């Protein structure tokens, strides 16, 4: 997996390429102000979770709110529906008639408040390395 660390700008902390894209841009890109735990970083993005989030995309995960309102899905069955990203470190968040899983790495909360992938997300990530999966060559 390629990791490019370089200034991005425009309020973008980092981005990734989903499986199946061109090989010369395959990987993740993170701005140095949000990469790692030392150096240029500062709170609230100083615990390396931007890279974790982007690797999630690289391994085929969508944002936990499904990039839309309540009916839009992240294609993982054990993550609750939501209509928006969460920010900061909320004590709770309730949207689309359920509690948001704002501590999930695929939300937009602060680094210190992200700490998990769901079992469904793990399965979705592992699936891309299965024979015939979009990244099975990496596993061979």
């Amino acid at each position, binding site marked *: 997996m390629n990791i490019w660390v370089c200034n991005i700008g425009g309020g*973008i902390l980092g981005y990734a390429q989903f499986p199946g894209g061109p090989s010369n841009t395959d990987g993740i890109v993170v701005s140095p102000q949000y990469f790692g735990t030392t150096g240029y970083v500062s709170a609230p993005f100083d615990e390396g979770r931007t890279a974790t989030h982007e690797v999630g995309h690289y391994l085929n995960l969508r944002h936990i709110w499904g990039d839309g309102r309540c009916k839009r899905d992240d294609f993982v069955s054990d993550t609750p529906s939501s209509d928006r990203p969460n920010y900061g470190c909320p004590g709770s968040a309730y949207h689309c008639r359920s509690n948001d899983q704002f501590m999930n790495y695929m939300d937009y909360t602060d680094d210190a408040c992200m700490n998990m992938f769901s079992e469904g997300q793990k399965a979705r990530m592992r699936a891309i390395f299965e024979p015939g999966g979009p990244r099975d060559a990496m596993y061979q």
Partner: protein
Amino acid sequence: MKLYFFSIILTAFAVFNSCEQSQEQVIEAINYEASSRGFYLNITLTGDRIMVGNRMGYEESTIPEGDSQLDFIRSEIAKIDLKSIPDFKAPSHESYRDAAASAYFSVKTKENTYESESFDHGNPPIEIAPIIEALLKLAKVE
């Protein structure tokens, strides 16, 4: 006589129908919101008042009557069938992988709020691209 009553009924239907359409088209607010993990922008236009918000807070101001961007937005909005806003297609989805902020456009009337599907900030659906460009100019956002 029957024709007379029929005409009255037909006229009443047309009047009430047009009243309902007029009411539907009375726009209370236009809103544009864009966000990524490190970026937030919210623009709300209510009459000649504009409120611009970012992660630091909100600022509200009055737009002078006759402002060309305001006039343009009003004339362009009038051309849109508000019910079609949710069907506008996003030209790209770079926000899905965080390469762009995610944006929404909505128009609020007394009866309803018509909201678009999400699209990339900087690449809106073609139907509303001129309006969003004017909104960003009005909000003095690059």
